[in-house]
């Protein structure tokens, strides 16, 4: 399988690998994919009171393209507002990494991971607003 230089670069030097505290009310966790399908992405976003993404971390089980897609997304969304991050399209990820057609699903998964992480953050904020303590999304695979 020929990989683009950018995929190889992200694969060999993945950016922002790691884990944020899933219990932190400022942290949204998105986990998408399934082991049976060969890809699982976990994306965590730490979001400031101003709605700007301060930090992003990922861990991915999957092929080089899946790892590269999630690594790229962490770079992109840092410093973005939630609204801007929700506009990140899988086509832009696929184009940046020159993904071949059989790997487009990796970029779709990365887009889904952003949406799932933000949905988790928003759900937490609502619970927080309602007075309850937030529970992390680690352990359930959100997003569709």
């Amino acid at each position, binding site marked *: 399988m020929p990989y683009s230089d950018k995929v190889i670069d992200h694969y060999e030097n993945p950016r922002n690998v790691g884990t944020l505290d899933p219990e932190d009310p400022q942290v949204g966790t998105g986990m998408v994919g*399934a*082991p049976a399908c060969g890809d699982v992405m976990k994306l965590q976003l730490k979001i400031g009171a101003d709605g700007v993404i301060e930090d992003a971390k990922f861990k991915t089980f999957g092929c080089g393209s899946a*790892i590269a897609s999630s690594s790229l997304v962490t770079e992109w969304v840092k410093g973005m507002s939630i609204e801007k991050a929700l506009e990140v399209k899988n086509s832009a990820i696929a184009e940046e990494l020159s993904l071949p057609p059989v790997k487009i699903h990796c970029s779709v998964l990365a887009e889904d991971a952003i949406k799932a992480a933000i949905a988790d953050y928003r759900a937490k904020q609502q619970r927080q607003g309602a007075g309850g303590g937030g529970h992390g999304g680690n352990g359930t695979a959100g997003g569709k």
Partner: protein
Amino acid sequence: MTVKLPIYLDNHATTPLDPRVLEVMLPYFTQEFGNAASRNHVFGWHAEEAVEQARAQIGTIIGASGKEIVFTSGATESDNLAIKGAAEFHHERGNHIVTCQTEHKAVLDSCKRLEKQGFEVTYLPVEKDGRVDPERLRAAMTARTILVSLMLANNEIGVVHPVVAIGKVVKEQGALFHIDAVQGVGKVPFNVDEARADLVSLSAHKMYGPKGIGALYVRRKPRVRIAPLIDGGGHERGLRSGTLNVPGIVGFGAACALAQEEMAAEALRLGSLRERLRRHLQEHLPETYVNGSLEHRLPGNLNLSFAYVEGEAMMMALKDVAVSSGSACTSASLAPSSVHRSLRIGEELAHTSIRFGLGRFNTEEEIDYGAALVVDKVRKLRELSPLWEMAQQGVDLKKIEWSHP
């Protein structure tokens, strides 16, 4: 000693040509260029002599006569000829064929084609150890069964099937027995009479011979009848028309002669190299599992699942070591291999298998280099794996509702 990179550990896909085989082949590209079917001059006679010698060498390694060898372009053609040829010839006796879910595509897709033409095919599952249970075969066979097609050794997980016990069942039920012996011949002992085989597929490039040449053994006593797929000049007893690939055939014969001579010593050497690799990996990497029976296995095969690490990412990480992954199929499709699906490997191990295929030219230094590299890369990829993290935290992956079906 420094190892030369990249290292080739994919000897189930193909093997390098043994230089001794090349040596024997070379004159047949130049001076000895005759057509083996030219009966009227010395050019043809020389070619024919060479072909007949190769036929005998190939026959000998499976305990057959050279007269029972039909040359083909490779085992894909041999499998097609055996299955479709037997089905066409014997369709009046019955329309049922039995094969196995973990056969090579050349067998499975030939059977699928026959299903479209009205044949019924039973695809046997394998047991936990990756092997066919002869009793399951017995239960599947009926009076309408005309053919059973089961392989000697599996190309992905390397398990060796109990073909002698299987052959006994096939013959009790009176069907023809086809064996795809591509991965096993020259690696483990095999004899057409012990297995009671009627048709056997062979390929030169899996045994240090050239690509594009294969054979189908067709039993003469009692005579096994099949219909040809390719019509023409009536070569190969009318079973496979077309001018013979003389240099390829000569190389195939030489490869068989070498394999026969060296099989016992080579099996010992490869078996101990394989165990060296397996022990190193399992000692240094927790949750590393052997797929299929370790006992009934080709000496050069190791198929491992490194839990929580995806196979394609592993192959990318091992760029200096050529291996293959059960997660990516032989073709361009990315579905997990049917072999791993048939083994009913759990969610947590799906897409995590790597096939190491050791061969004649691999050295201990190469294996040690490869083993160290794999340990390093699996550790790195596990650090990157959310599944590994969850498993370390004691999360049961089976209890999670994953977002994609």
